[in-house]
């Protein structure tokens, strides 16, 4: 087992070409690629993650390579190959890192039924976690990035893996995906943050990633207990502040954020009912990052007892 960042880039590239198993807690992912763009990007973004031995069995197998055929002469594209035709289209070759993130998200979201999965960021302080649900584009990743640069633990940025019985969340830290203005916001907010190159002209505009820290990856084996639920709402004109969120509305919002609620049947219903019943649920309205971070701190502090 070795940390990816400790390997020479050429060595890491050689291993990815042959196929290597990465620990992306809680999963083991076998990645194979001939694309230099992916080798370079992963060496940086996954620098604190471990490379497992090749004898390790993987949860998921993802190969990212160029598309075949005569079209290659016109446009060099990258595509993720899993085992079934994945439901997305090729991207330009330089966007191979996005292709990989998309493919891994798809595997996690459609193949994991050990946990109830919510589209949510999870951050924690002193062992108490804040669940920040939201579909993509609602600001959860930006808030997550803003908080982890202020000392909060980066538990998950995209998927909260909730155990329906214990209500504990298994950490799944990944490169935090930021889009468009969020990239400048975070670069301005925390100049020391390690951002990947920006990918311009993706289907979602400009996309870049925040590199997970060693602390986040090392803490990943420890699950957290959510202490509060915070629905983020960026609003430049609205009145900033925390507002209570109705239990029933929160329940419905959480089912809408879940990718596998249906498959859990009654156990899923009970888990989400308990979650919104036992935890304080709030919405935070904010015009800027500093306000958002302050509100998140207040949301967690208000639940100290």
């Amino acid at each position: 087992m070795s940390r990816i960042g400790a390997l020479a880039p050429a060595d890491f590239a050689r291993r990815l070409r042959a196929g290597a198993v990465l620990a992306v807690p809680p999963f083991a992912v076998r990645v194979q690629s001939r694309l230099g763009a992916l080798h370079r990007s992963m060496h940086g973004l996954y620098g604190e993650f471990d490379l497992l031995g090749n004898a390790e069995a993987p949860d998921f197998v993802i190969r990212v390579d160029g598309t075949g055929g005569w079209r290659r002469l016109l446009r060099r594209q990258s595509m993720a190959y899993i085992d079934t035709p994945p439901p997305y289209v090729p991207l330009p070759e330089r966007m191979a890192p996005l292709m990989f993130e998309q493919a891994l998200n798809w595997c996690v979201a459609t193949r994991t039924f050990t946990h109830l999965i919510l589209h949510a960021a999870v951050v924690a302080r002193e062992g108490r976690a804040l669940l920040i649900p939201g579909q993509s584009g609602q600001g959860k990743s930006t808030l997550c990035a803003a908080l982890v640069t202020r000392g909060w633990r980066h538990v998950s940025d995209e998927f909260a893996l909730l155990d329906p019985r214990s209500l504990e969340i298994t950490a799944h830290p990944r490169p935090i995906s930021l889009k468009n203005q969020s990239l400048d916001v975070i670069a301005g907010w925390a100049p020391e943050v390690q951002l990947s190159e920006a990918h311009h002209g993706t289907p979602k505009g400009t996309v870049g990633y925040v590199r997970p820290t060693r602390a986040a990856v090392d803490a990943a084996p420890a699950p957290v207990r959510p202490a509060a639920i915070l629905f983020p709402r960026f609003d430049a004109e609205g009145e900033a502040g925390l507002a209570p969120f109705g239990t029933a509305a929160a329940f419905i919002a959480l089912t809408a954020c879940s990718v596998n609620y249906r498959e859990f049947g009654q156990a899923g219903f009970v888990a989400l009912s308990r979650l919104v019943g036992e935890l304080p649920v709030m919405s935070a309205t904010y015009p800027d990052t500093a306000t958002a971070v302050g509100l998140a701190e207040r949301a967690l502090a208000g639940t100290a007892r």
Partner: protein
Amino acid sequence: MDDPLLECLRDPARMARLGGPAWAGLMQRARPRALLGKLGRAAADTGIEESLPPAVRRQFASVDRLCAYNDEHLRAEAFMVLHALRRTGAPVLFLKGTAYALLGLEVARGRVSSDVDIMVPRDRLEAVEQALGAAGWLSLKTDAYDQHYYRSWMHELPPLQHRHRATVMDVHHTILPLTGRIRPDAAALLAAARPVAVHGRQAFVLEPADMVVHAAVHLFQDGDLAERLRELLDIHELVTEFAGRESGFWDRLAERAALHGAGRPVWYALNFARRLLATPVPPGRLEALPSRPRRVARAAMGRLAPVALLPSLPDRPSAAAAWARRLLFLRSHWLRMPPGLLLRHLSVKAWAALRARLSSLF
């Protein structure tokens, strides 16, 4: 045959000795063909789960939850269908995965399939279709030719999908196309059907020998076999369970195969299940089947079927398997329709495919 997937299905204890790369390949081949749940069940039954790699245990646990949901889902959908059809007075017979789940058969364990299959008497088809439409089941095929194709020649209506729940359902009136070489006796299937209760409502399922005949004709008379190992495993599990539970099962199977004119596909089913999955078929039972395939056909199928049935690795498509599947695709169509109709059907389909390609280019 030496194939890691077959070996693990036949002898699940082998899974305890697999290395990481072997697991990667095995899961890549098993998952898309809905065999991962089967491997997981087999591992649990053999008591070797503890010795499996953590990633494999996680994936088995996930697919196990999916199967449990699937079972509940099929039962709930079956109830909805019975509710929608309550005023038609038509007896409703559930087929395939839905029937296996309703009966709690061994074959239903670890089996992921969310589609619902029902069969009703042909003279009730119109009323059934109307009642289902009123309950939100809409046709997936809107093309006029497809509609004509199903309604005039097939054994089922064009597939339906529920507009809110997205469940897909096939409504059959018999178990093979009307144009095919074999014409099973639909009235006899219905007459021999066994009752089953679904949340307090009465429905029916095929009797055991008919259930095996249906699985056999579906795979060996009406299909191209491509990567459909799971269906052979269905046959293996059905036969193994029924032979151990239903007295006189083997005689009954030969009798029903003869009645439906399905001796040949049943012969293939038992032959390949025994050869690939070591199904315990007692001596003499294969020979007792009526209208067994001739030696040339047996030799050709013996070469083609195993190659076609086994799922390929996604990164290593095999040319031999592709050819076997092409030949078996032609065979299945040959068995499905008389030559004139087949020629007409294939040219309509080829023209539609060409038009679709051309319109995607410009």
